[in-house]
């Protein structure tokens, strides 16, 4: 590796605060901005979740009006998905992909700045609707008409803010794809890339493929509301269900947008702490690609109860079930990577192992949901809520937390506090299960989702779930503290932070120079696939 011989060309960051953060074109600064933004959004979305859970602590209406409750549900999801998880992944991509593939920066640095800075504006608009007369959006994150068309003045603001988020993610994705395809160091062939870069390449494709479709769907909502079009109204020859088809054509790939980068992260962490190469690198790549491909063919599994043609239901059921196979390949490969390794259990590894187990549980409930007759019972109950929080919280969010611990020393140049990290992990993993596992029971026993009040037989598990929510929420304050502490100082981290780690990012100093690889590193012909 020839990487770090170019100190001479090193340019530091601009000293002016505005120049550095507002006008920046530097992938690390933009990555940092994304990550900080995402953390803030996670806490805002989490606070909304806590309002939801607090209202559900007991039967009866104690704290909030049902309409406000619906606003919380809606905004919680929008903030978590578009504000917390997706920006976190984009932030990680910004920080790590150029370093991992030996590039000086992202391919389109100015556009990179634009993609980030659109987000604060978009969320300022979205959250400001809470303070408008009539309140914020309350139709669920899925925004189904005709209900969505019953909003007060917040309606166009919500639609447009989602448009902005979409534009931001599309530009972010274009950038990642262009970077991966065009900026690799000589010798870094596609099949040598780290899994994270692979996962993001495919994720980027999904984003560009479906965010515009969402934009189209909500644009039709807008014109139905203000220009008298009748896309979603039967009297005018349209169909409310048409919206659902278009929305879920976006929505299902969207959930894989939130999990494929996680697969990449886990595929980096497990080999490092198993001190063993990733098992089945190429099958991992094919698995991700087939998951992405299939994700375009399964959207209607969210709408089995709308009364589809039998053939349609069957097709979507089979296609959905098939996704379990490539996902299974990934899970098995991770287990095989740990098998006969030499394992240690630093915080990133703990979160990664928890990810594999808990994501799989979420995947199982997903498989159950895909079986049409059974879904007739599960649909729109807390069983679904349990399913997607297992894949999203203990899946996507856990992977982001794991990635943070894994690369935090690289980013800051300091080791984080391992003891606090362990506390964070154990509290999180315990409480998150108290939070979401009972929701399976609630759903099976018949509790619908999106309700602020429920019948008495659901009281116990709701109480337990709420306790779990507050425990899990406050455990995240430890995370916040670990990060702040690590940024402010601590034991100096070496270039290669983890002894089992492999890949270009560990050849650069911690923290890396402002411009990563000012001249491309040389990747030896013979090197085994990266991890």
């Amino acid at each position: 590796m020839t990487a770090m011989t170019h100190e001479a060309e090193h340019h530091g960051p601009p000293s002016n605060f505005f120049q550095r953060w507002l006008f920046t074109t530097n992938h690390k600064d933009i990555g940092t901005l994304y990550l900080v933004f995402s953390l803030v959004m996670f806490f805002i979305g989490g606070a909304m979740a806590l309002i939801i859970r607090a209202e559900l602590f007991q039967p009866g209406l104690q704290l909030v009006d049902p309409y406000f409750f619906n606003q919380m549900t809606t905004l919680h999801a929008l903030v978590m998905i578009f504000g917390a998880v997706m920006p976190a992944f984009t932030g990680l991509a910004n920080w790590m992909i150029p370093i991992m593939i030996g590039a000086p920066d992202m391919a389109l640095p100015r556009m990179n700045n634009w993609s980030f800075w659109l987000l604060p504006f978009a969320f300022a608009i979205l959250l400001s609707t809470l303070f408008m007369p009539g309140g914020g959006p309350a139709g669920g994150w899925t925004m189904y008409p005709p209900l969505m068309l019953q909003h007060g003045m917040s309606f166009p603001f919500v639609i447009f803010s989602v448009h902005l988020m979409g534009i931001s993610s599309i530009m972010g994705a274009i950038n990642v794809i262009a970077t991966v395809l065009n900026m690799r160091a000589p010798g870094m062939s596609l099949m040598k890339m780290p899994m994270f870069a692979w996962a993001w390449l495919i994720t980027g494709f999904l984003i560009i493929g479906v965010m515009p479709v969402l934009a189209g769907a909500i644009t039709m909502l807008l014109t139905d509301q203000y220009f008298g079009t009748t896309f979603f109204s039967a009297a005018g020859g349209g169909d409310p269900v048409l919206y659902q088809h278009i929305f879920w054509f976006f929505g299902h790939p969207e959930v894989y947008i939130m999990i494929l980068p996680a697969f990449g992260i886990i595929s980096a962490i497990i080999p490092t702490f198993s001190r063993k190469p990733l098992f089945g690198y190429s099958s991992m790549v094919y698995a991700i690609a087939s998951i992405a491909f299939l994700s375009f063919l399964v959207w209607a599994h969210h709408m089995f109860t709308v009364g589809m043609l039998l053939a349609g239901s069957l097709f979507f059921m089979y296609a959905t079930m098939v996704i379990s196979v490539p996902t299974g390949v990934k899970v098995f490969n991770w287990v095989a990577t740990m098998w006969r390794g030499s394992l240690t259990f630093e915080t990133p590894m703990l979160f990664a192992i928890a990810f594999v187990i808990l994501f799989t549980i979420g995947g199982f409930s997903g498989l159950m949901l895909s079986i049409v007759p059974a879904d007739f019972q599960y649909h729109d109950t807390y069983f679904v809520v349990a399913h997607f929080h297992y894949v999203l919280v203990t899946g996507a969010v856990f992977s982001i937390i794991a990635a943070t611990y894994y690369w935090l020393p690289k980013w800051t140049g300091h080791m984080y506090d391992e003891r606090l990290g362990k506390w964070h992990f154990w509290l999180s993993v315990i409480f998150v299960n108290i939070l979401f596992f009972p929701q399976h029971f609630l759903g099976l026993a018949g509790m619908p989702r999106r309700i602020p009040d429920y019948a008495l037989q659901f009281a116990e598990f709701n109480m337990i779930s709420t306790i779990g929510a507050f425990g899990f929420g406050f455990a995240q304050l430890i995370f916040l503290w670990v990060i702040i502490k690590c940024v402010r100082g601590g034991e100096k981290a070496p270039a290669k932070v983890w002894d089992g780690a492999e890949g270009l990012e560990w050849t650069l100093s911690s923290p890396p120079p402002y411009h990563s690889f000012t001249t491309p590193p040389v990747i030896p012909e013979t090197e085994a696939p990266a991890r």
Partner: protein
Amino acid sequence: MRLESKKSAARAGGVVFGLLAAAGTAHADFALNMTPGVSSVSREVYGLHMLLLWICTAIGVLVFSAIIYSVIKFRRSKGAVAAQFHHNTTVEIVWTVIPMLILISIAVPATKVLVVMEDTSNSDLSIKVTGYQWRWGYEYLDEGISFISSLDRQSDLARQRNPVIKPREVENYLLEVDNPVVVPVGKKIRFLLTSNDVIHSWWVPALGWKRDAIPGYINELWTRIEEPGIYRGQCAELCGRDHAFMPIVVKAVPEDEYRAWVEEQKARMAPGRQEPAQAANPAPASQPQQALPPAAAAAQDVVAEPTLAELMQLGEQAYLTNCASCHQADGTGMPPMFPALKGSPVVAGDIDAHLEVVLRGVPGTAMVSFAHLSDAELAAIVTYKRNAWGNDTGELIRPADVRAAR
């Protein structure tokens, strides 16, 4: 660290178990699993669910054992040295093919059940179900009976922010209605679902499935209930503010009892009597007398030329049932989403314009048409609105006026 993690794990187990145990003793009513239900379909669905559950559990046990084994066995602190293998085509093929086979073994029974469920032909009776924000309307197509079914008064009182009675004091809190759907056992009943405003979803777990009620379209669902009884469910698609408060109660009775009920309803619906059908069955078995008589019951007594007092009394009832969820009991609404009726220029103004709003709704808003209410009820509601809360117009609207405006 090793020690610490083990301790934490033990703690984790303790907490979970403790909580579960506490929950178990606190209330005997809670359920962990899906109900097998009371029809052949619901039992098939339940069987499918259990099959899935066991398959997932089995795979889970295998996968998680392998992980736990690795975590225990291959830790560096125990001196494990990493092997360097990184692929093995045989095992990769094996763990692609086996899940595939498992999936096929699930798909076959699932397909069979689905085909049976989708077949609504040869039904014995059809009931049209219409979702309204936030109540259900039922229409027995072969009998010409129809009525509206809303959350019962007790639950409605208990679900307020500062309730006069506590939810825990209400039996079947949120799962009770004023007028249940009465159906015969042993018959193939076809439900035709649609909606008047937004999408709702008609769900009674004991019947094994739910289906969306979509405005402008009709969805079908069928059942053949095998045991008499009362089966409860609720709306399962977010439909706005009171989505949590539109329960469904199905009362399955033997054939002869059903016929008797039908005759009673028909008599009530007979021409010349201008009131809405009222499911006159003496409130569902599980519940003693309802605290307040449903609005519709009073409507029966309204003659063609009611007095203002009569209309006000009936109007208040009907208003509370139908309008108060948006416009509030005291008529102040929740501006700007739901306008106040108290002091509203529409309410105080031209009667025809006022009736127009109520009969046709305001397109594109939550204010939908209430034309499904009877002339008597609407007359009472409008009269009530024009005289309550200081809207003292002193005007009296007769059912005939409403009929004329339709």
